[in-house]
């Protein structure tokens, strides 16, 4: 079992009345790529800055490799931080940027040279070593910032939305490169982003945050398939999950979901207490667009009739905007077939692929 490199316990940070980080706890293991994912303002960057030492938390503790670093200045924590705005030193050459941290640590010149050259090579910066960092393009600047942080061999490498300002075309390749580099050098990474696709693609584990709190921690698959609440379900996955209101009814000791006039069996049985608690009540169900089956005609009693609002054809996929009574539903199909707008089609929902949420708390109940 890999050792725990970073442990955050009950971290709380307030700015006046605003609680930016609210009792956040998680741990990151050695060699792990761990992401803090959430919308703007959810507290992920503040959490990162507390871990880096650029902010002092009001409550809670931070441990790096078992050492309590909560009150230490950034220089003494054994971390490195890559900023969203790169913050390369524009007046210094790429070489000097990469060597900066090493020079401060007092390493001998030839060792510095060796390390810088190795890093430059793995980041494809060798041709730019003599260039002043301020003159570089955006992705080269970010690679320099990355290289500079890796050079000092931190216990944990922190990244604050590093690819937000990079050209869209290059983002994709940089993500892969970063992941590859991380695996190769076995770097422990804490990555902050608002882009769920990015987090899903690169991370070993993700912590989804909102309003200063962590809502769920798990591997990308776990979070995708078993979201703990509506927020997480909606935040992960594109196109967004469909959340519709329905009723839970008890019929012959089996629970069914009633959607408009159609009754669906829940084949997975709900635990008895939950079943009792919610029988006859309104609940929320979540179903992902890609889990909806589309039929032109009704072929089973469970098929629901919807009208087609709009059809979006994107290469190999078809995204359908449907209307079920007053509710909007989206469906995704990889099979292309002829559908006209304003026509009617039938949806089939697989009960075991649904998530059931409490209507008030929006927490998952099944």
């Amino acid at each position, binding site marked *: 079992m890999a050792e725990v490199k970073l442990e955050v316990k009950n971290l709380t940070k307030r700015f006046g009345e605003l609680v930016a980080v609210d009792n956040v706890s998680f741990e990151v293991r050695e060699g792990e790529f761990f992401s803090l994912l959430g919308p703007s303002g959810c507290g992920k960057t503040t959490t990162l800055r507390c871990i880096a030492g650029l902010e002092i938390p009001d409550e809670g503790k931070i441990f790096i490799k078992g050492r309590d670093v909560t009150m230490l*200045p950034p220089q003494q924590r054994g971390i*490195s931080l890559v*900023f969203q705005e790169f913050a390369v*030193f524009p007046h210094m050459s790429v070489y000097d940027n990469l060597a900066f941290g090493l020079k401060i640590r007092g390493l001998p010149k030839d060792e510095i040279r060796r390390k810088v050259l190795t890093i430059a090579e793995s980041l494809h910066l060798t041709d730019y070593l003599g260039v002043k960092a301020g003159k570089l393009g955006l992705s080269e600047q970010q690679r320099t910032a990355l290289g500079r*942080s890796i050079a000092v061999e931190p216990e944990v490498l922190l990244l604050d939305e590093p690819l937000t300002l990079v050209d869209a075309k290059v983002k994709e390749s940089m993500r892969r490169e970063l992941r590859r580099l991380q695996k190769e050098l076995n770097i422990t990474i804490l990555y902050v982003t608002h882009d769920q696709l990015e987090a899903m693609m690169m991370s070993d584990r993700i912590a989804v945050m909102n309003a200063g709190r962590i809502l769920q921690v798990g591997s990308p698959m776990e979070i995708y398939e078993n979201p703990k609440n509506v927020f997480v379900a909606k935040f992960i996955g594109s196109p967004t999950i469909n959340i519709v209101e329905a009723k839970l009814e008890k019929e012959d000791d089996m629970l069914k979901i009633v959607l408009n006039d159609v009754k669906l069996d829940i084949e997975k049985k709900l635990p008895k207490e939950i079943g009792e608690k919610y029988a006859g009540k309104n609940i929320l169900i979540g179903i992902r667009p890609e889990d909806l089956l589309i039929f032109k005609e009704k072929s089973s009693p469970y098929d629901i009739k919807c009208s087609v609002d709009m059809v979006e054809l994107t290469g190999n996929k078809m995204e359908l905007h449907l209307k079920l009574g007053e509710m909007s539903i989206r469906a995704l199909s990889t099979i292309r077939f002829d559908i006209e707008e304003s026509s009617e089609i039938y949806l089939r929902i697989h009960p075991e692929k649904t998530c059931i949420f409490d209507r008030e708390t929006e927490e998952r109940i099944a």
Partner: protein
Amino acid sequence: MGGNRLSTKPPKLVSLLANLPVNILLYVTLIVPFILMIYLAFLAWNPAAGYEWWQAPLAGLSNFARAFSDARFITALGRTVLFTLVVVMIEFSLGLVLAYLLLEEFKGKRAVLSIIIYPLMLPWVVVALIFYLLFQDYGPVNNLFLKALIGDAATQMHWFLSPTTAFVTLLIADIWQWTPFMFLILYSGLSAVSKRLIEAAQVLGASSRTIFWRIQLPLIRPLIIIALVLRALEAFKVFDIAYVMTGGGPGTSTETLSLYIYRVAIEYHDISYAAALSLIILVILVIVIRVFIWYSFERR
């Protein structure tokens, strides 16, 4: 950003407004006299002689030749250059130290800042007046401060009677007034350095001193150059304090360049010689500035 420039021609009104007032001012008030000065320099004219300048005889290059063998002129020039160098160096160093110390927040910083820069607002003559009074034989410099250090012998110190000490009083007056200028420019430049860069350096392990010398200072290098040049140009013009505090004395030992030329023109009425001296200085300055611009910005 080079403004929001259009490549189209400006409309008549704009052209008129943008050009006319400024051109009237310049041509009427300055350019004509400048041209006149060139002519005057080649004359042998003294208004006391009774006739107008256009009736005065040409004197060829004699005024210029005289300038090169005029010891008083050359010493004044050298003295002014020395003054400029010393004053700029000291003001820059003090300004830098002060800027470094005041970069971080602390209680009352705003008040400290306002107080520190107020000497800049006082007219030069008033500063000259202040230090004239301070350095009097029975003034506070002697009577209070020096007395505390060396006892009664302090009142024997006659600041304005010895060439070196008189020069020092001029230096002190200028430094007192203009260090805040350097401080202000350096301080605003340093504060403008992006916080991100500083955080990046901190995270990499740099101490505040390293950050100051390796990151903040190099980044404001262009600003430093501008500040030094501006201050040097102003310091070179020094007149007010020399005129008011020492009168160039004792003798001519604190006579600055501007003071000498002023004397030649106003007290000795030697207009053409003054014109010649002025021209020589103008030419020297233009050359120096041109070389400097080439050195700083155009090579490589």
